[in-house]
């Protein structure tokens, strides 16, 4: 993105600097612990629901490996706001606390700075994915093992759902960083992330799914695209109103496309401006 390609070393030191910026304040572990704790709670709730559900003639009981998949598939659907926020804050906190000046003094090539942030966002996103899995398993595994049919941790389908969930969590963090580059005002960015993920997209997915000619569009919303990477989960289907999803690979590409467009916009707006 910069005029001349950065040397590997220049990008390397920028990565190290970004990692140190991230890990030298409390934000990253507070959000990470929050994600693990929240998923542990939801994992327990869902696992109890499946393990203790009384047989009903209306809805077939979810049992066996399906129950394990239904619980572990919620990593993305429930936890994605955490990586999105950490990615956004990775950029906006520099604007809020005016550390952007110092960051650009040591690396005036703004594309290098932004690129390093995206890579560090991906790394911390993947780490959050692992933390989320740990949180989910910490509660759902004992519940399903003791009261249900088991957690099936060695089942390829279960491993696949966990792996894809971690991958998508990494993508969310990249998307967050790219969004932060477009909306550098920290308060505005946080409000926008929360409003979009908690209200706008769920309503849009339901609304679009209700209109035949537009039902295909809903699949291209970021949350729907992320759901499609992990595969249709129970929670995804409830929150998605049962709309059609893209193939998994296409969902990942849609998320990457969002990140790419936001990155380019951020690079030529926020990261092109005078820093005064």
């Amino acid at each position: 993105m910069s005029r001349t390609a950065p040397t590997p070393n220049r990008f390397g030191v920028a990565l190290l600097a970004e990692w140190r910026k991230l890990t030298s304040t409390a934000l990253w572990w507070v959000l990470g612990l929050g994600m693990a704790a929240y998923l542990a709670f939801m994992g327990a709730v869902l696992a109890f629901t499946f393990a203790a559900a009384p047989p009903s003639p209306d809805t077939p009981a979810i049992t066996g490996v399906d129950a394990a998949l239904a619980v572990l598939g919620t990593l993305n659907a429930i936890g994605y706001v955490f990586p999105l926020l950490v990615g956004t804050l990775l950029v906006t906190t520099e604007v809020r606390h005016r550390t952007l000046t110092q960051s650009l003094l040591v690396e005036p090539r703004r594309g290098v700075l932004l690129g390093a942030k995206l890579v560090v966002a991906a790394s911390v996103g993947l780490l959050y994915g692992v933390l989320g899995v740990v949180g989910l398993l910490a509660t759902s595994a004992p519940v399903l093992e003791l009261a249900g049919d088991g957690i099936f941790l060695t089942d390829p389908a279960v491993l696949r759902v966990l792996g894809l969930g971690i991958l998508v969590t990494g993508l969310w963090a990249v998307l967050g960083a790219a969004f932060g580059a477009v909306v550098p005002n920290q308060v505005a960015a946080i409000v926008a992330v929360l409003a979009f993920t908690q209200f706008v997209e769920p309503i849009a997915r339901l609304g679009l799914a209700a209109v035949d000619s537009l039902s295909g569009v809903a699949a291209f919303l970021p949350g729907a695209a992320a759901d499609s990477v992990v595969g249709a989960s129970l929670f995804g289907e409830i929150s998605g109103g049962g709309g059609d999803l893209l193939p998994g690979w296409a969902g990942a590409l849609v998320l990457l496309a969002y990140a790419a467009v936001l990155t380019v916009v951020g690079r030529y707006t926020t990261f092109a401006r005078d820093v005064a």
Partner: protein
Amino acid sequence: MDAPVLAVEALGKSFGPVRAVDDLTFEVQPGRVTGFLGPNGSGKTTTLRMLLGLVRPTDGRALVGGRPYDAHPVPGALVGAALEATGFHPGRTGLGHLTAYAPQVGVDRQRCREVLELVGLGPAGDRKVGGYSLGMRQRLGLATALLADPPALLLDEPANGLDPEGIVWLRGFLRHLAAEGRTVLVSSHVLAEVQHTVDDVVVIAKGRLVHASSLAELAALAGVSTYVETPDPAALSALCAERGWVSAPRDRGTQVDDVDAATVGAAAHAAGLELHQLTTRGADLEDVFLRLTGAAS
């Protein structure tokens, strides 16, 4: 020490309809402390930010060692800068702040500790910046600028928030850095603050250059005057009129402009005039500074 010259050539910057910097040209030489002076809002900070590649000039160029700042391979190791309004994350420790920026100027944690000690923040380095006083933040900014032991230093209002001891220390420190051959540029809106530190002055007002010279040349602009007290002011007035000197009542006596004390004393002696005080008044640089910057507005 191969220190770079800082050069500003026909530099201009407009923010919408506001002309913040206009046709500004000056050079800052190595081995000297240069004061960059002007009232608040005169375009100092914008000029410094253009030198550092943070603000893009509308016209002209700002060069470090003959090249734009961002054309240097490791610019942060060439020019150490402490700018006003540069922030610190309140939740980061002083040491954490320095170590975050250390990789890109090529220094290790050990050096971060060293510069903390150097600016007198040693024990405070492990505390969060949110609890720092203004003076401590100023010192941390200076520590950041010094990280890579750079041959050029660019400090924006570095005395702000420092206690008197800190200001005295800073003076000596900057003199020492310049004596080592480094290029040192210090901005201030108060000449008196840097008067005892700088060798050269660049004065701007309303974004335009109004004066650039050595401090001695600036002092010469102020001229000399002699303060005289006598029990017979009427005789003194007559004497001044006879010699064609400009005099005016001042304090409890008379000020005679552009004449030194020896000349006034000799004339009074020859005229048999009794004097109670006869003093050369030093150049009042602040007056000159206000005259220079005031004339532009």
